[in-house]
Every structure is written in structure tokens, then in C-alpha cells.
């Protein structure tokens, strides 16, 4: 599993580089019904094979790719440290995949829902959730997503993902959720 993740990371990083070089990237008009190509798996990837997906391929994937547990597109939550809006390296990899997907589907929109843990002042937490959402927005825009595809909503501490009152819950609540239009 870990190996599989590593492989994805490599792919996504390479892809991110290409995107950066080609400025806005491609906005292909590929049909939305394209399926995940199974070209065999090398690193023990059970289920859908993932190895040979090309760099531009995220942009050509259909909506069902969002439901594929093996795809980075399946991960639609990024997490943050306490009182921080800084994206981790792992998050940037996930976001690169979403950026490619969105850039390839300019008709799609995504809501970035920013959240915090329950500690501290509620309206400050609304501000913090907004900052997290804006950090994700910036990352997506750098990688070719059009501004009008993105909407940021901060819920602060109002909609926790986990209901507990300790760090094990708090770390799950400091997050930005990517909610695709129509989801």
C-alpha cells in the first residue's frame, strides 16, 4: 500500500512539473465517460492497476475516477496542523491530481470547505477555515484551475468530521474538503 502511494506520488510530482512548465496546462475536451485504464499493476496494486497512467491522463478521466479508491482523486480531504494554513507535501500531491482533473474539465466546479478544530474563538476559526480554503485555492490555481471553477466556504468549527474532544478528533477536523459540483 505504501509502495503504491509512493508510486502515485512520483507520478503526481512529475505531472505537476509538466503542468507548471506548460503554464495553464491542457483543457482537453476529452469525453467525461473515459474510464480508468487498466494497464496492469506492478507495485502490488490490487484492484485497478495504476502504473501506466500518463501525465495528462487525470484531465481525461471521467467522474467515476472520483470513486476509485486507488486514485488520488478519491482523496478529497487535506489536513492541517493547529492554527496553520500551510499545505503539507502529501497534500500538495493530492491537490496536483485534483488540479489536473479540474483543468481537464473546465465545466466542473469545486467547493473548498475549510474547517478547524473546536478550540478557541468561533469567528476566528471561521477566519482560519477560510485561510485554509484559500491556501488550497491558490495551489489549484497555480496548477491551471480557473478561478471561476472554485468556491471557498469556511465552516470554522461548526461542522466537525469527528465529534470527540481530544487530539485524535481535532486532527481530523482541521481540514479542507473538496466538494465537486453536483456531489
Amino acid at each position: 500500500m505504501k509502495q503504491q502511494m509512493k508510486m502515485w506520488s512520483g507520478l503526481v510530482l512529475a505531472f505537476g512539473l509538466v503542468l507548471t512548465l506548460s503554464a495553464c496546462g491542457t483543457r482537453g475536451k476529452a469525453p467525461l465517460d473515459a474510464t480508468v485504464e487498466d494497464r496492469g499493476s506492478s507495485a502490488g496494486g490490487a484492484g485497478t492497476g495504476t502504473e501506466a497512467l500518463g501525465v495528462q491522463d487525470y484531465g481525461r478521466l471521467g467522474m467515476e475516477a472520483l470513486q476509485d479508491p486507488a486514485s488520488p482523486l478519491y482523496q478529497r480531504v487535506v489536513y492541517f496542523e493547529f492554527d496553520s494554513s500551510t499545505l503539507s507535501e502529501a497534500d500538495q500531491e493530492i491537490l496536483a491530481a485534483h488540479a489536473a482533473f479540474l483543468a481537464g474539465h473546465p465545466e466542473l466546479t469545486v467547493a473548498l470547505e475549510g474547517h478547524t478544530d473546536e478550540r478557541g474563538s468561533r469567528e476566528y476559526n471561521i477566519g482560519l477555515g477560510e485561510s485554509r480554503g484559500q491556501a488550497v485555492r491558490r495551489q489549484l490555481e497555480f496548477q491551471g484551475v480557473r478561478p471561476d471553477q472554485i468556491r471557498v466556504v469556511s465552516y470554522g468549527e461548526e461542522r466537525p468530521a469527528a465529534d470527540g474532544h481530544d487530539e485524535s478528533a481535532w486532527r481530523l477536523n482541521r481540514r479542507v474538503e473538496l466538494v465537486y459540483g453536483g456531489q
Partner: protein
Amino acid sequence: MQMKDMMRWLLLAALLAGSRGALAVLTIEITQGMEGASPIAVVPFATPAGVTLPEDIAAIISSNLRRSGRFAPLPEADLIARPREAADVRFQDWRVLGVGDLVIGRVLQPAPGRYEVQFQLFDVFRSRQLTGYSIPARPDELRRVAHRISDLIYETLTGEPGAFDTRIAYVTAEQGAEGKRYALQVADSDGHNSRTVLRSPQPLMSPAWSSDGQQLAYVSFEGRKAAIYVQDVGTGARSEVAAFDGINGAPAWSPDGRRLAVTLSRDGNPEIYVLHLADKRLQRLTNNAAIDTEPAWSPDGNHLVFTSDRGGAPQLYRMDSRGGNVERLSFEGNYNAGADYSADGKRLTLVHRDGRNYRIAVLELDSKRLRVLTDGSLDESPSFAPNGSMIIYATSVGGRGVLAAVSADGRFRQRLTLSGGDVREPAWSPVLRR
């Protein structure tokens, strides 16, 4: 005679909450008593023969005085006499009990459905009347009259205005079959007469009273995005006043009631604006890449205090009402946020991180001295009573959100618990218009 340190008592009974008649019980429990509370006797008010009042006025007054932390009303069973009029009072009897002050009263019924509530407050040791009034009331006004009498007694004996004839607004969240249900509620300051002014399946936040106590501004996420609404508490009529892209939050009324300070992120990140309600004109006050939010007007309207992490961590700052002359106010610790001004403009109450705990503190603006008042771990949303005597705030007990109040000197505490669900974000109303 002293109040016990951990005096516990239950005050309130069942309340009808909301239009659907859901039964909610709000319980007030004093969790830390105050040494040196003054003994006082409040004699049950006399009524005409055969008349049963819908409210026990003396009991309401006793509860109010006890909840202030300043008075220790005699239990009803310990009353040695029940004088109806001044001529019936034998001061020496009360002196023996060590009671310093005595309240008596009677309710007359000049016509069906109309009452006249008369009361007198006596200084037992000087054997003289300190104050007394006669107040007309309809049956549904009797509780309010009892609160007004409590205010008169409190002011006469302490020299400071009372804050019993006031209300609190707060937000409740309950887990329903189809997810969380949120409600904005308003109750009397003793927790009675709670009623729901808004229900929503989406979060509600940040209720703020207008300075005349007639309107509430709040944030609602109905439609899965934030918007600020203003609602008339009496009629229920409401209007959307801010629904820009991004944050629409932290509404705070200017003292003149014509403007709302709000937080908007429409220009990229959270900034404080003033919204002129008459023409919806916007005036931007902050311009900083940091989070700027939680504005609070000084009572004279000349300044706003706000929270900003421009220095790397959330701290309190003050600016003039045009956004100039920004000055940092809080320096102790690395988390100070969510300030509310006292009515005299001399103090702020705020959320302060103390080690790993979030607690309610008071900051003296002249000396910049910060004093932590509470001992919870997740205390937030402090709001001053209009007379500055108490601070109501939200805390957590056993993982549940409850309201609590602490005296401004930290010596006296009480807890308000709603049966079922979380209670949060209390906002204490200003003195109500008479």
C-alpha cells in the same frame, strides 16, 4: 451567615421552547458561591383573597438576588414573619436573624386581568424604608415586573444598576434523525421564557444584540454559504444584509444602531468592514494579509477592538472607527481572541489560552492587566452583562456545550444547562427599553 462554597440549587422548571412545543429544561446551578453575600429576606407577596397569581414574584426576586452572587436570600421556611405592609414589620425580629435588608410586597387586582404590584425595601438596622414603588402589570407581565423590582433593589443596595430585566440570546445544536438541528433562542436572563427565533438544518452563529435590544444580527449557513441577517426579536421579521462571496461573519452593532461591523473575505482574505444599514454602503477598515475578525465597538463608538494574527498568533488590536491608529492590546500568551467591551468601556472580556486551556479573561484597558476568570479547557464566547457585574460564556461539561456565568471578579460562578443538545454563543442583551 455565609453562603456555602459549593452551594447547589435548582432554579428552573420546564419551559416550552419554540413553536413546535418541544420541551426543554434549562437548569441554573451555582457552582461556586461567594463569601460575604449579604443576608436579605424577601417575604412572599400578599394577594387578594381567592386570587392565585401565575407567578411567584418573591421567589423570582430571591432567585435573581441569589444569582447575582451579592445576596443570600433567607430560605422561605426560615421567614419568621410575613408582614404585608410597613405597619406590620417588626424590625427587631429580623435583626435577631442577622438580616440586613427586608423586602415586602403585595399584589392588588383593581380589575380582572389587571394587577398592581407594590413593594418596599427596608434597611432593618436603621428601621427605615429605602425604596418602594407600585407597578401596574398584565398577567403576562408579572415576571418582567419581578425582574424590574429586582433591578431596583439591586441598584438601591449596591449603587450599581441591575441587569435582571435583560435577555440572553444563544445557539443550540441537537442531533436529530436527519443530522444536526440548529436553533437561535432568546430567554430572560434567568433562563425563563426561552423561545426559538430561528431554526435551521445548517449552522447558526454569532448572535449580536442591537443597542436597543430590539434586533439580533446573526450568521446563518442556510444555502450552504454564510450570510448575515438582521431580525426583529419582537415581530420575527428578518432581512439578509450581507451575502458576499466567502465569509460573512462576526456582526457587531455600532452603538447608534445604524451600522454593523462585519468580517468579509470578498477581497481575498478576512477583513473588517463597516456596513451602513440604510444604504448597504461598505467601508473597509482593515487591509492586511492576516486574519482580521471579531470586531467589537467601544461603547462611545469611537473605536473597534478586533482579533488579528498579523503578528503570527491571534491577538487583540484596537483601531479607530475609520480603521486608523491600530494598536496592539494583548501581550500575555499566544492566543487572545473574541473580545467584548464592558458597558463602561474600561474592560474587555476575551478568550485567552492558558497552557493548553482556553479560558475567559478580563483585560483592563488602562493598565493592560489580564486576569483569567475561569478554569475550563474549552471556554469561549464571553459576553458582559450590561451592568458589567457578570460575564456569560460557553463552556464544555462532559463533552457537552453548556452556558456558564462568572462574576467579573471571578469569585462567583454558575452554570446553565439545557436538557439535550449543546448550548453555545451566549450574547447578553443591553438594558431593555422600558
